[in-house]
């Protein structure tokens, strides 16, 4: 019995009806009085113990739950009662400190973890709402800022001003990327991302991603290689926007961490998943590589291989975490391989559906200018900056713009005369864009564009529900606006179009080439305004050397004329050539 006492047990024998006799010495923790007075808990345990003593079945002992109460000294102690089966009816009271601490540490952990999870879920919810609101608040002025910069860059500037403006533009673009990353990430976290399911051309998506990435890669002298295996189906159904974003993230990283060599994008069928549309992508670089112990964590949020990396190379560190979620939503997985010093390869798989028949070849709409001159446009926006911006975007397009400041005025104005296009800001005083859309829609079938700062899918749904033709998210790029207008207004006369056949393999790059020339028109005009003939000569020289190669002989001719007239300082001839170029670019139709 002394052994049991030493182990923390008090032993009682049930001697008569509800009376218990202590066997052996009393442990120091045993409160005074009868056992039932000392331990009120027994009132719920004894009925079970009686039943057990009467019919114990196969068990040798019955344990009670743990309980806590004041002991003899007044301290809180933890106990357990045990009914033991046998000749005699024994009741053990255990002072179960150790068992209690063990049980508690386990349950405590579970409860704390559960409370923390709840807390995080609440914070995430609040954060997502906050970020959605912030993105709206930030994107609206950003729209105005970046738009102004774009317009400013089209005006005559001296070298110093141009340099400042470039810094401004780059910083603005970076900021917008950061905002978009954060918004994406918070949506991913809150499970608010739904993938698009539309038909797209894989080759085109990859080409676009490469073209964007190429700007920075070329600046660092890196080559970009793109290999799509011939057995890869290129017409797919899935989310091209998200796919492009993954590729851009991976290419962006590869560029960041590579100083010489090349970046490769490889696409092949996924050999692990022999179903059509299951693809394997690999983006490789010849950069600094990733240490082996970091390979598995780089896809976690906020984990660039090293915090100092973030400082040195910039970025939010969210790109890979976002990519990982997108890949998972596409039914694939993402992983990295690397040899430090020799380069890294980011792999991912994704499952798409294969589209049945190839789409009829889209019109050559890549060069973005308003096809139709003299369109009459009704623009309603309460923000003077935004109106100024749109006016600026359309200033060379030959459109006539009537401006009003709210939805009600827009509806009134619409009744006054016929319009080719209506542009409505979604949020306006008096009558908002959605209601105005409904009223104008009731009056006619004119294309209506709603401009909103909400990138979220619900905002689009709301716009289309109101009956708009398209929904444009701010900040709106000039090209997006012009493309949307072109799409909505059928080409008026095809007679003055210049049809240029372009070889199929050149098509993906022709759009970009022509867009750059369009940019040249602006630069040429600006240069002419400040008699910067050197720039004109240089641009003319470039055109001369490249136009014919793409099948645009006139560009070569105009380029050579520009070069000559610049050398001769013949401003009248330069002006004429620039106008020729503008006209040619406006009327060109690629086939």
């Amino acid at each position: 019995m002394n052994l049991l006492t030493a182990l923390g047990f008090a032993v009682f024998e049930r001697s008569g009806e509800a009376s218990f006799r202590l066997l052996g010495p009393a442990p120091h923790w045993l409160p005074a009085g009868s056992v039932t007075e000392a331990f009120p808990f027994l009132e719920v345990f004894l009925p079970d113990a009686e039943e057990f003593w009467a019919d114990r079945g196969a068990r040798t002992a019955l344990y009670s739950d743990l309980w806590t109460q004041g002991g003899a000294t007044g301290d809180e102690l933890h106990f357990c009662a045990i009914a033991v089966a046998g000749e005699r009816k024994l009741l053990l009271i255990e002072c179960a400190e150790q068992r209690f601490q063990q049980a508690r540490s386990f349950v405590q952990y579970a409860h704390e973890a559960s409370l923390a999870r709840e807390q995080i879920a609440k914070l995430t919810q609040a954060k997502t709402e906050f970020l959605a609101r912030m993105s709206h608040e930030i994107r609206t002025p950003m729209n105005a800022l970046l738009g102004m910069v774009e317009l400013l860059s089209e005006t005559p500037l001296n070298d110093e001003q141009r340099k400042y403006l470039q810094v401004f533009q780059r910083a603005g673009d970076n900021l917008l990327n950061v905002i978009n990353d954060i918004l994406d990430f918070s949506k991913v976290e809150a499970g608010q991302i739904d993938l698009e399911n539309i038909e797209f051309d894989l080759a085109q998506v990859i080409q676009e991603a490469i073209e964007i990435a190429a700007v920075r890669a070329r600046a660092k002298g890196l080559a970009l290689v793109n290999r799509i295996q011939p057995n890869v189906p290129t017409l797919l159904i899935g989310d091209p926007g998200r796919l492009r974003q993954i590729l851009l993230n991976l290419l962006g990283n590869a560029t960041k961490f590579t100083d010489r060599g090349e970046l490769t994008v490889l696409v092949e069928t996924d050999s692990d998943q022999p179903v059509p549309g299951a693809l394997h992508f690999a983006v490789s670089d010849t950069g600094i590589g990733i240490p082996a112990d970091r390979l598995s964590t780089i896809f976690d949020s906020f984990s660039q291989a090293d915090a100092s990396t973030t400082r040195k190379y910039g970025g939010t560190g969210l790109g890979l975490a976002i990519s990982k979620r997108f890949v998972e939503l596409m039914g694939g997985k993402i992983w990295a391989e690397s040899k430090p010093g020799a380069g890294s390869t980011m792999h991912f798989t994704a499952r798409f559906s294969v589209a049945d028949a190839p789409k009829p070849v889209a019109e050559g709409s890549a060069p973005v200018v308003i096809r139709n001159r003299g369109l009459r446009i009704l623009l309603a926006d309460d923000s003077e900056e935004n109106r100024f911006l749109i006016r600026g975007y359309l200033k060379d397009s030959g459109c006539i713009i009537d401006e009003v400041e709210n939805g009600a005025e827009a509806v009134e104005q619409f009744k006054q005369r016929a319009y080719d296009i209506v542009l409505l800001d979604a949020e306006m005083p008096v009558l908002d864009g959605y209601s105005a859309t409904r009223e104008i829609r009731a009056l006619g079938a004119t294309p209506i564009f709603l401009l909103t700062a909400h990138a979220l899918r619900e905002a689009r749904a709301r716009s289309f529900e109101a009956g708009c033709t398209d929904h444009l998210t701010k900040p709106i790029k000039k090209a997006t606006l012009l493309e949307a207008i072109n799409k909505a207004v059928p080409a008026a006369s095809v007679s003055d179009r210049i049809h240029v056949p372009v070889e199929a393999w050149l098509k993906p790059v022709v759009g970009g080439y022509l867009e750059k020339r369009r940019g040249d028109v602006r630069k040429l005009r600006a240069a002419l305004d400040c008699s910067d003939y050197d720039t004109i000569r240089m641009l003319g020289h470039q055109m001369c050397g490249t136009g014919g190669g793409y099948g645009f002989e006139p560009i070569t001719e105009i380029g050579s004329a520009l070069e000559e007239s610049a050398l001769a300082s013949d401003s009248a001839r330069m002006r004429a050539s620039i106008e020729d170029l503008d006209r040619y670019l406006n009327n060109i139709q690629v086939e």
Partner: protein
Amino acid sequence: MLKKKICMVGQFGVGKTSLVRRFVESIFDERYLTTIGVKIDRKDVTVGSESVTLMLWDLAGEDDLAQLNVSHLRGASGYILVVDGCRAASLNKAVELQRRIAGQLGPLPFVLVLNKADLRDRWEVQDTAVAEHGWPTFETSAKAGSGVEEMFLALAGKLLQ
């Protein structure tokens, strides 16, 4: 002296132990130490002209792993359903527990307690969701002490009627 057993039930972490502690010892601890099994305290009170010893059985809160052991309510005169006003789920849990207890032990007097009233600006529990049940309801803060004694004494009074 007359003894009455009162049980504290509710989801884990809602403040059952803290309420008893505030009532019996007039102290509050920010730290969370979860209850294992049952914690038993006693407090003598006087209601009107009558003195009574309240045996306070603080039962471990229910979680995903362990269910409330209803047999611990055997012999109870009444119980206190505790809800954390900041956690909407804890009201659902209280409603579920009430149903289970009434199902196994028949009608027993009880009160509903919305605890953590000091954090009222963070409450998720809707007044309408509470009122729907028509139960006697108290708002308490084990931290600030508000409403705690009133609540225990009100239930004690009801048990002596």
